[in-house]
C-alpha cells in the first residue's frame, strides 16, 4: 500500500481495544507492522511510546505515537480519508451519535463484562449479569435508532460504532464457554443478537476477531498470575 509512511501497531492479541484498531486499519486497507506486547513484562517500546498509560493499543505513525483506541480509530479515518469506506458517518449529527454510543460502550459495556469475568462467586456473577442486562438493553435501543432497520449500526456496512461494540464479541463468546453465560440473548435483545451474528460473519469480523479459546486461555493465565500475586503477599 503506497504512501502511508511507516506504520506500527503495539498490541496484545486479546485486547478488545487493540482488535478495534486492527478492524479500523483493515477497513481502510492499510498495511502495518504489528508488534505483540507482553503486558506482564512491558517492553521499552511500549514504555517509550505510551509513557502516560503504558497500555495498548499504540499506533506509531512515522515515529509519532497515537494512544486511546477511539482516538486512534478517528485518526486512521482522518489520515486515510481518501480511502473508502468512511469509518465515521459524514453527517455531524450522526457522528455525534456514533461517538456518544462508542463512549457508552467503553464507560458501561466494557466494565460490565469485565465484572462478569472477574466475579469470584456464582452469586456475584449473577449480580454482574443482571447489571449487564440493563446495558445490553440500551444497546438494543441504540441499534434500532442508529441502524434505521439496516444490517449494522452504521447502516449497510460496518462502521465506527460497529467496531466499537464488535471488538468485544470474542470475549463474550469466551465467557459463554467458560461460565455458560449468554450476554447477548436473542430472546431478550433480538436485534442486537442478530447484529452480533452478522458482525462475526462480516469480512472485518472474520479477519480481526480472535478465537474465543485464545481469550479463555489468556483469562486462565491472568487468574493464575493474580493467585500467585496474592499467595506471595
Amino acid at each position: 500500500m503506497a504512501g502511508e509512511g511507516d506504520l506500527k501497531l503495539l498490541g496484545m492479541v486479546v485486547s478488545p481495544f487493540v482488535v478495534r484498531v486492527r478492524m479500523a486499519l483493515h477497513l481502510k486497507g492499510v498495511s502495518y507492522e504489528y508488534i505483540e506486547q507482553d503486558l506482564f513484562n512491558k517492553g521499552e517500546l511500549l514504555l517509550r511510546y505510551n509513557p502516560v498509560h503504558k497500555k495498548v493499543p499504540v499506533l506509531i505513525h512515522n515515529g509519532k505515537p497515537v494512544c486511546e483506541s477511539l482516538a486512534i480509530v478517528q485518526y486512521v479515518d482522518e489520515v486515510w480519508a481518501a480511502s473508502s469506506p468512511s469509518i465515521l458517518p459524514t453527517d455531524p449529527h450522526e457522528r455525534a451519535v456514533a461517538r456518544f454510543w462508542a463512549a457508552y460502550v467503553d464507560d458501561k459495556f466494557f466494565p460490565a463484562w469485565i465484572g462478569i469475568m472477574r466475579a469470584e462467586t456464582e452469586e456475584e456473577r449473577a449480580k454482574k449479569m443482571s447489571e449487564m442486562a440493563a446495558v445490553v438493553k440500551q444497546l438494543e435501543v441504540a441499534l434500532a435508532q442508529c441502524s434505521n432497520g439496516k444490517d449494522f449500526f452504521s447502516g449497510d456496512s460496518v462502521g465506527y460504532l460497529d467496531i466499537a461494540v464488535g471488538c468485544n464479541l470474542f470475549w463474550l463468546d469466551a465467557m459463554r464457554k467458560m461460565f455458560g453465560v449468554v450476554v447477548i440473548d436473542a430472546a431478550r435483545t433480538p436485534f442486537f443478537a442478530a447484529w452480533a451474528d452478522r458482525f462475526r460473519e462480516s469480512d472485518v469480523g472474520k479477519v480481526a476477531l480472535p478465537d474465543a479459546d485464545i481469550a479463555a486461555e489468556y483469562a486462565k493465565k491472568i487468574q493464575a498470575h493474580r493467585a500467585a500475586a496474592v499467595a506471595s503477599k
Partner: protein
Amino acid sequence: MAEPVKLIGTFGSPFVHRAEVALRLKGVPYELILEDLTNKSELLLRHNPIHKSVPVLLHGDRPAICESLLIVEYIDEAFDGPPLLPIDPYDRAMARFWAQFIEQKCAKPFWMALWLNDGDKREVFVKEAKENMALLESRLHGKRFFAGDTVGYLDFAACGLALVLGVLAEVTGLSLVGEDEFPLLRRWADDYTSEETVKACLPPREQLVAHFSGKKDRIKLAVNAMACQM
C-alpha cells in the same frame, strides 16, 4: 433562517461551560435553559434518558446531543466559524487523548480529594491528581493556551481545573495545591478565565463561590457515598 439552538445546562457547571464557550466562539446564538439538578425537568429526562445530566444540545428538531466534549466536537463540525479542534489529524488525536486524560486522571481525583472526609483516602487522590497535573502542565510549555495562541478544545476540556484551583479551593478551605505548585497551570487558569469570550459566559467568582458553598454538604454526601463503593 437558522435553526434554533437550545442548551440545557445548570449554573456553575464546567461541563455546560464547555458547550457555551464553543457556541459563542462559533458565533451561534442559543437559548440557555437552566436546570435545577435536584429537580430534573421532563425536558432533560426526555432528551438525556441515559445519563440524565447536563449539558444537552438541541439543534432544531434533531435528537439531543449529550456529553460536553462530544457537543463541542459537534458544534465545531456543524457550524462555520473558527476551528475549535486542531486541523491536523495528529494534533486532533493528541487533543482527544489529553482531554480524556484530564477528565479521568486529573479532574476526577481532584474532585474526590476536595470532598472526601477520610484524610488517608484524600491523600491518595491528591497524590494521583498531582502526578497527573505535572504531566498535563508539560503540555503548556511555550504556549499560552493548550490549543496555542487562542483557546480551543483542550482548554475547554481543562476548564474544570481552573474551577478546582480557584473557587473550589476557597469553598472547601482546602489548599490541596500549594501557591508555588504548577505555575504554568495557574497562569493558564488566569489567562483562560480572563479571555474575552470565556469571561462573557463565566459567572463572577463571588457567585460561583456562593453557589458551591450552598451545595457543599450535598456534594460531600454524594462523594463520600461514592467513595465507599469504590
